[in-house]
């Protein structure tokens, strides 16, 4: 006789289940959200105020930049898929000797920031690079041209293909072997089974990984600028440095944002669907191992080349130049000033980003109304904004309205906030989801107003999450290059800026010690992110 009332569904639909948030919380959340929207809004105003914005968009040069950027993103993405899918398959499904080691080695390039990668490529293969100086005694006067498209595509591919490996690996491990077994039992051989049963199921994972790579290569500044390839980020930077008219730079930045936003949108759509596909039930059994036989030799050679270029080359180059630098008496002490600056700016950014993430996360998790979801979405805008765009917009805003702030630490911190609040919100949100709303309600009945509940109950409970969010922002901010170049106070060198400027000027030995430090920082942050994901 029980009546199954669809109450819960109705609650979710109508959204009235969550109480109205207190005004101070909404105020704080809106403030943080606006912070993320200011740069993009200002660029739009700037571009719209120009009378010939349309003609700027359609100019040959702009179109040239767009085509070059898309060509680079397309090439890097394709190459990453061509490397990443076989790597993922061979390390999960075949009897490749040393699979476990190859897995770690092929994921390691993730810890190399793009400008360190760019540095490694230039310092190893460029003119006056390590390779040439090793080959010179044999009469090799000139290596093939590296700067421009080939170098940029090589550097970006080498250090972003692991995104595809990670995504496809995950899918392969979750794959239900029953599909393949059915295909084999119906008389298809292993190769046709892979093409007709396995590959279609991997498609969401491949596309997901590919989109991440595309996003990475669209927004990258470090590698393309060091390798002097005129994609959007470098063109924006050159335009900004070389002319007093900010309009063209703003227009270029907006087109770039449109590209990244499109990629991000496609990725989030796809991720939602992929999750849905998986939810049908995980694979209880691990799929069988496929014997490579004689194919294992070409497979090993493939891995040797990939790991050689993506791991041995950068690490070897850094160590080579470091040794040479020490030999030449290059002072190591210079690094400490930059390290302290990096730590100061990143530490402050981490604290501020965590504080800013709290109202956004609380609104998003506890007050899933219109305001809550709008604030959450707006705060994610930073994900779609490449660092160069945020830096540029804030430079303009400061030059126009707040000249006193230009090239000061506070403005740099604002840029870091716009860039890293989304990251902090992600972690804070996840830990807040672990706290039952009942606990907060109990605190209300025991006499605490909403603010008291936040201070005495919610924040103490999610403290480990807040610490994690802060650490994540700290480590990512350490690596940040483009906003730092544009906004750092004069003479305020960070490790990232030091590597970049030394490499641009050809001082490879001087760039080596900070590059090594940066790889270590990045390794810690990767370990951190992976641990967070596992806990979730």
């Amino acid at each position, binding site marked *: 006789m029980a009546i199954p009332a*669809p*109450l819960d569904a*109705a609650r979710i639909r109508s959204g009235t289940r969550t109480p109205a948030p207190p005004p101070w919380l909404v105020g704080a959340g809106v403030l943080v959200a606006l912070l993320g929207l200011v740069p993009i809004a200002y660029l739009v105003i700037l571009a719209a105020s120009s009378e010939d914005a349309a003609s700027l968009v359609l100019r040959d040069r702009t179109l040239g930049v767009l085509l070059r950027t898309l060509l680079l993103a397309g090439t890097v993405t394709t190459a990453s898929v061509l490397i990443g899918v076989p790597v993922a398959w061979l390390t999960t499904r075949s009897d490749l000797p040393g699979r476990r080691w190859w897995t770690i080695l092929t994921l390691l390039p993730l810890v190399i920031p793009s400008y360190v990668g760019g540095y490694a490529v230039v310092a190893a293969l460029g003119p006056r690079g390590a390779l040439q100086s090793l080959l010179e005694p044999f009469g090799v006067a000139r290596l093939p041209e590296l700067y421009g498209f080939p170098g940029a595509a090589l550097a970006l591919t080498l250090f972003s293909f692991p995104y595809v490996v990670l995504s496809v690996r995950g899918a392969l491990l979750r794959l239900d072997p029953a599909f393949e077994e059915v295909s084999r039992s119906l008389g298809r051989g292993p190769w046709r089974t892979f093409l007709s049963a396995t590959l279609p199921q991997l498609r969401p994972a491949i596309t997901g990984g590919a989109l991440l790579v595309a996003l990475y290569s669209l927004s990258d500044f470090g590698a393309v600028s060091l390798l002097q390839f005129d994609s959007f980020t470098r063109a924006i930077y050159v335009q900004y440095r070389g002319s007093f008219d900010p309009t063209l730079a703003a227009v270029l930045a907006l087109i770039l944002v449109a590209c990244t936003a499109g990629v991000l949108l496609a990725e989030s759509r796809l991720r939602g669907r992929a999750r849905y596909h998986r939810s049908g039930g995980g694979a209880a059994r691990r799929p069988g191992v496929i014997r490579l036989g004689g194919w294992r030799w070409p497979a090993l050679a493939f891995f040797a080349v990939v790991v050689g270029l993506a791991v041995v080359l950068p690490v070897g180059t850094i160590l080579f130049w470091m040794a040479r630098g020490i030999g030449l008496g290059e002072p190591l002490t210079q690094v400490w000033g930059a390290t302290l600056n990096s730590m100061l700016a990143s530490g402050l950014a981490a604290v501020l980003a965590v504080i800013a993430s709290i109202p956004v996360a609380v609104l998003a998790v506890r007050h899933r109304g219109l305001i809550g979801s709008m604030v959450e979405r707006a705060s994610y805008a930073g994900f779609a904004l490449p660092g160069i765009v945020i830096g540029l917009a804030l430079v303009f805003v400061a030059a126009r309205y707040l000249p006193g702030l230009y090239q000061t630490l506070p403005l740099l911190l604002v840029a870091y906030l716009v860039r890293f609040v989304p990251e902090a919100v992600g972690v804070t949100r996840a830990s807040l989801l672990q706290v039952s709303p009942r606990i907060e*309600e*109990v605190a*209300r*009945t025991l006499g*605490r107003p909403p603010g008291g509940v936040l201070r005495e*109950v919610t924040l103490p409970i999610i403290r480990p999450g807040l610490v994690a969010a802060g650490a994540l922002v700290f480590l990512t901010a350490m690596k940040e290059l483009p906003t730092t170049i544009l906004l750092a106070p004069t003479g305020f060198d960070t490790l990232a800026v030091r590597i970049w400027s030394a490499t641009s000027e050809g001082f490879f030995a001087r760039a080596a010690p900070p590059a090594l430090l940066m790889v270590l920082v990045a390794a810690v942050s990767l370990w951190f992110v992976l641990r967070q994901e596992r806990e979730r």
Partner: protein
Amino acid sequence: MTATLDSPPVTMTSMADQVAGTEPALALRTLSLTKRFGEVVAVEDVRLEVRRGEFLGVLGPSGCGKTTLLRLIAGFERPDGGGIEIDGLAVSGPRRHQPPERRRIGMVFQESALFPHLDVIGNIGFGLPRRGRVTRVAEMVALVGLAGLQHRMPHELSGGQQQRVALARALAPDPALILLDEPLSSLDATLRAQLRVEVREILRAAGATTVFVTHDQGEALEISDRVAVMRAGRIEQISTPSELYLRPINRFVAGFVGEANLLPGEVRHGEVQTLVGRFRAGNGTLADGTRAEVLLRPEQLHMLPVERLSTPPRPETVLRIVRRVFHGSEVHHVLRSDSGLELEAATPSSSTLEIGTEVIAHARAREVPVYPLDADAAPGSMEPAEAMGPTPIGAEPRRP
């Protein structure tokens, strides 16, 4: 309709009233409380009065609105209509909404919701002012029997211990009202049965007024002073547990509280004729020819094997035992007639009647609840709400 049924729309008179003779202070009063979520009416026209020190159970199937009712009382939801008074003070009304922290209520949820960053003492003392906190916490620890566990963290406690801490925490500030939202349903059956008695004793010792929401009818009947049965946002009946079992107001309550046989029959000469005998049809208000159902609990049905009868029975009254369900102290027999009607009869478990035995059944009670099947058949009909069209909010209550 039973002889004694004269349920007023708000509450039935209870023992406390009759003993005291005067109007006792109310700890809680709701005035035709209504709450909608979009299209769905979660709570509709609910009127409750709970006396100081009383233990009221709110019983209903999942989704009936009982948790929403509790959250309205606590102040986590704003009503769309009606009002709430706690200890004589209006806390919810048309233009009034006191936040939960000002309502002097204590709450215990299904999941214990202990503060994971505080130990037992920290949890119990959370709602207390600094002055006198230590003494009061010690009293509470003793009351719920947790001496020795004061410095444990929540994850170091068993499920039952956690709920006792949650109860002590709710009781510590001496609230006007304790609200329990299925506090035992996350525990396993044995522990639950034991803890429900313990919780009742603790609340009695503390002199607390309690509203206790559950979907478990055994739990509600066992420990409540009175039980409110809810369905689809409305309160169907508020009575003492025995009244609820013996004289349910309609078929829904009859079926939800205990096991029910509803036998169809027809009124003739003021009596309902059924397969197992004739029963007095209320106050004689049912017209001849009215079709009605008679409520018989399994223990009221008595079986006689056909082979032991001296005269052969009328064939349509013969039932066959199709299933035996052993319950320990008694055995339930499922009986089926040729027409497909199924009845359940309970006997002491020493009964030796086998599956397949043909029996006739008769009832030991003569005065039993009767529910007319046709809503328009008679004045004073106790037809369940589902047979009627929807009532607009604010309209007169449809129960007589």
